[in-house]
């Protein structure tokens, strides 16, 4: 039992360290994947363990989005992630206004463009498909 625990701890440490090293590369490549007409605003580095029973997306952040602006949300998962990074955006009425994951078909989108017409506070919620373990980067940029 003790041996298993030590092995598990070592594996966890190694995976954390390896993401630490690759994190900046993933951030840079994700920013670049937004495209030449995108202007960087913010990024979120997400690292989550496995949680199959989760009901809601686990990583949350608030952001002010402004009317008459087209935002692009890019989602990049590290190669060793079990699941794909997905995103829900809720408005101040707690209503989901966009999702990068289609529950019915199981399809995930690598990016979403959002044409904002209502200025306000929005909640970005990130997770990995089926509550799986994963690490990734979510980038928010503006596009013309």
């Amino acid at each position, binding site marked *: 039992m003790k041996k298993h625990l030590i092995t598990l701890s070592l594996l966890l440490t190694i995976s954390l360290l390896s993401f630490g090293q690759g994190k900046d590369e993933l951030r*840079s490549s994700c*920013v*670049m994947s*937004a495209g*030449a007409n*995108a*202007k*960087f*605003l*913010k*990024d979120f580095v997400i690292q989550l363990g496995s949680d199959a029973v989760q009901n809601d997306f686990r990583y949350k*952040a*608030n*952001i*002010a989005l*402004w*009317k*008459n*602006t087209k935002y692009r949300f890019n989602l990049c998962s590290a190669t060793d992630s079990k699941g794909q990074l997905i995103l829900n955006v809720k*408005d*101040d*009425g*707690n*209503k989901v*206004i*966009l999702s*990068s994951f289609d529950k019915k078909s199981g399809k995930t*989108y*690598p*990016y*979403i*463009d*959002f*044409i*904002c*017409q*209502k*200025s*306000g*506070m929005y*909640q970005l919620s990130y997770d990995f498909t089926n509550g799986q373990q994963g690490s990734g980067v979510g980038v928010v*940029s*503006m596009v*013309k």
Partner: protein
Amino acid sequence: MKLKGVVILIIALTSFACRNLSSKPTEFVFPEIDTIPVSEAQKLSPEAIADISKNISSPVEIANMLLNLDIPFSQSYLATSVDPNKLSTNFDKAIKLGILGADLGYLNMYEKTGSSLDVLSSIRKLAEDIKVGQFFDFESIKRLSKNKSNLDSLLFISIDSYTKIDNYLRENDRGQLSALMIIGVWIEGQYLATQVVSKVPNKMLMDRVGEQKIILNDLIFLLVPYCNHDSEYSSLCKNLQEIKDKYHDIRITFTQGDPVSVEKDGGLTVTQTETSVVEMSKEQLDGIIEITKNIRNRLVINN
């Protein structure tokens, strides 16, 4: 003790009132409690403070809007009077670090990268003075500016440097300097928008100025724990309250609608049909332009 807990909960709920409503709001209103007691604001968790500081809008958004509206660049909007060698207090250094950060965003957005080198040098000096110089990637920003190469990389490294400084200050019990930096960024962005709108009365830009009401309370919330620190802090708290007073009667209403999604090139495009509508008179706008100019100029000139 129980009562204290309830008070904290009420304050937290009212401060985040615009975020977690179960029913759809049709109008944005400032939280009922107009002034947050200092002692209670101090008890908010670092996570809540971090959340607030992260969601204040980026200065490049205003600059980007001006660029999209074909508003010509003007050097006169920049805080050229700031001399980092003449600043004595950390208050001055931190707030000007924010002001110059917004100027850097404006310069970068308009690709006036040659002019940005002076601003960069000032930023480096200020960052070093408050012991956060290690987070400002001066050489990379300078290289990207000189080469006029990738604007996105330049924006990424510039914004990332500020984010790292902000995180470090908050994690090392220097949250007051982080708050000042963020407020500096916002005031300069607001100054830029209001100066342009005073010359070019564009409706979209006017609306953006009016919509700042949405984040104003959060901004004030960041500074509240430090309002009694010394005269510099209390004066800035008073200034922000003056701006808030100017915004009090500006109405922001919302219309309802469902978003429309279209799949295109492997991605998804979502168009919002709900809208926000700003009702602001010319007098109200003039009041905001005036108060912003006075406060910003006082901060910039007062070396």
